[in-house]
């Protein structure tokens, strides 16, 4: 951050050339800045406004304070959905971060076939989220799925209960399927971080006779701290916002077993067509994802200052 500030300040502030340069900079940055302000900042503010009104899709309503939020938080369906979203997001965060770190550590070793592993690592990330959901849905399907074949044909169990037909099974598969893609992104970022680690640090520790575990906790983790922070933010946001995978897998079912907030939001929009409640749900989602992401990072950087991590 400090570096960027110094760079933005520049040396000769008051010369005519400096002024003309500033004007040029403002001019060529304007389209991007205005587009993003108009297409993200304005809709975000607008969503906040809708959440405090009783507007409908065709009519601007009047302010009604926090009525939408009160309605939301006293609705059982919303509270269930909120709890489910938390469970889902935590499971997704833990699984995709842990797998990503494990893959990166593995691919940072030298072994035969590493080129293949590194080439394959990016493949799940290249899949559209919704395709990930489709593939996993049929992978675990009770009739045609290969999981059934392994469980039954190979004699692990006499019968196969399709996981998507049970409450916990559906949540678990929704977490695993989404982590299949996200762990790939996490691993790519972790691996990029590991590759910038100076060899000397590694070699010095070997001389000191540090154990593998000590090297991991005392050198690798501290070195990766900024990357871990970014990955945790990305995974947290992605977990709270996950829609595509769950939509393709279960559309929120069975029953409401996988109706996380994003699915609930879609239902409010297109089934109940309740603009106020949908906006309030959007606000809750946005605040949760952003807030939690930053809290995690803050905790990690308690002694280092947050800016270094998210820069």
């Amino acid at each position: 951050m400090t570096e960027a500030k110094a760079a933005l300040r520049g040396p000769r502030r008051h010369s005519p050339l400096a002024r003309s340069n500033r004007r040029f900079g403002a001019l060529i940055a304007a389209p991007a800045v205005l587009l993003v302000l108009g297409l993200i900042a304005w809709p975000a503010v607008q969503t906040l406004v809708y959440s405090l009104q009783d507007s409908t899709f065709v009519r601007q309503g009047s302010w009604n304070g926090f009525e939408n939020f009160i309605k939301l938080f006293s609705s059982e369906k919303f509270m269930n959905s909120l709890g489910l979203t938390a469970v889902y997001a935590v499971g997704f965060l833990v699984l995709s971060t842990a797998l990503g770190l494990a893959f990166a550590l593995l691919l940072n070793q030298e072994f035969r076939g590493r080129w293949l592993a590194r080439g394959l690592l990016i493949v799940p990330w290249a899949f559209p989220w919704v395709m990930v959901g489709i593939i996993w849905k049929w992978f675990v399907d009770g009739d045609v799925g290969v999981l059934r074949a392994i469980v039954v044909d190979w004699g692990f169990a006499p019968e196969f209960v399709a996981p998507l037909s049970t409450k916990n099974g559906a949540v678990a598969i929704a977490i695993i399927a989404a982590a299949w893609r996200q762990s790939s992104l996490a691993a790519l970022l972790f691996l990029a971080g590991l590759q910038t680690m100076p060899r000397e640090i590694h070699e010095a520790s070997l001389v000191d006779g540090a154990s593998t575990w000590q090297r991991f906790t005392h050198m690798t983790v501290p070195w990766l701290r900024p990357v871990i922070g970014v990955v945790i933010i990305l995974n947290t946001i992605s977990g709270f916002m996950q829609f595509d995978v769950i939509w393709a897998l279960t559309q929120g079912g069975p029953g409401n077993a996988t109706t996380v907030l994003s699915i609930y939001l879609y239902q409010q929009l297109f089934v109940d067509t309740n603009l106020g409640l949908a906006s309030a749900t959007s606000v809750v989602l946005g605040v949760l994802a952003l807030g939690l992401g930053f809290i995690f990072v803050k905790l990690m950087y308690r002694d280092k200052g947050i800016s270094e991590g998210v820069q």
Partner: protein
Amino acid sequence: MRRSRLQSTIIYVSFALFLIWILFPLYFTVLSSFMTPSEIGSRPFHWWPENPTLINYIAIFTGNSTPFGEGVSQGIVSSTDAVERILPAMGRSLIVGALVALINVVIGGLAGYAFSRFPFRGASLAYFLLIASRVVPGLAIVLPFFIVFRQVGLLNTMTGLTIAYVAFTLPISVWVLKTYFDTVPIEIEEAATIDGASRLRTLAVIVAPLAKPGLIAAGLLAFLEAWSEFFFALVLTDSLTAPPVVAGLQSLQQFSWTTLAAATVVTVIPPVIIAVAFQRYIVSGLAAGSVK
């Protein structure tokens, strides 16, 4: 460094698990796409198609399900225009993705260059706002898009989708490109300026070629995002692009997983090829900002 036998074993066992984790779901999908609907449900499971068939791909590329003939009764995509919608949807995905990428490279490139070289009054604030909007989730702001698009008639149009996707990709592009321009030595531009070249000309002729890897990374990331996007396409259009069309096959009364598998394979081939072929650019783009 020599490894103990135990360490080697751990590494190769992990490698095997890694391969299974990534490849197994893919193998099942590709395998299914070469089977007939009646074979996919057979027990015991067929790990290799008995009579490999292109019937699912033919249905998609010819846009009709008649190649199945009598198979229709066995649960093929039968009614509706579901199959014939796939190829045109992919075409529209391609157009939207290319437009989004182009706009990102041009507008994002200009802004990235400005933030890197020509700090203007309020540049810090503007840059901060751009970066902050990167983490605003699309899900949370879809409503105003829906309402405004409805009023101005942009629902279910490629223009509308392109606008929405530009919003989500621009912050990342500006970030990636500013980071990249920062690594391009400034001396070359100064020499060009002394020679009397205008600033825009210097950018186009001298800086842009030097910043090519950054521009490629930003363009590809934007394209992949647009190609893959599902939620906005679902809310703002009636299955205009490939992801919602393919996902829509699942909700048909009569359809077969084998056809869906083939449609999935066809839809993921472009992004997978791009990602693998340009892995270096893409990873450097993804890592900009998170890895120093």
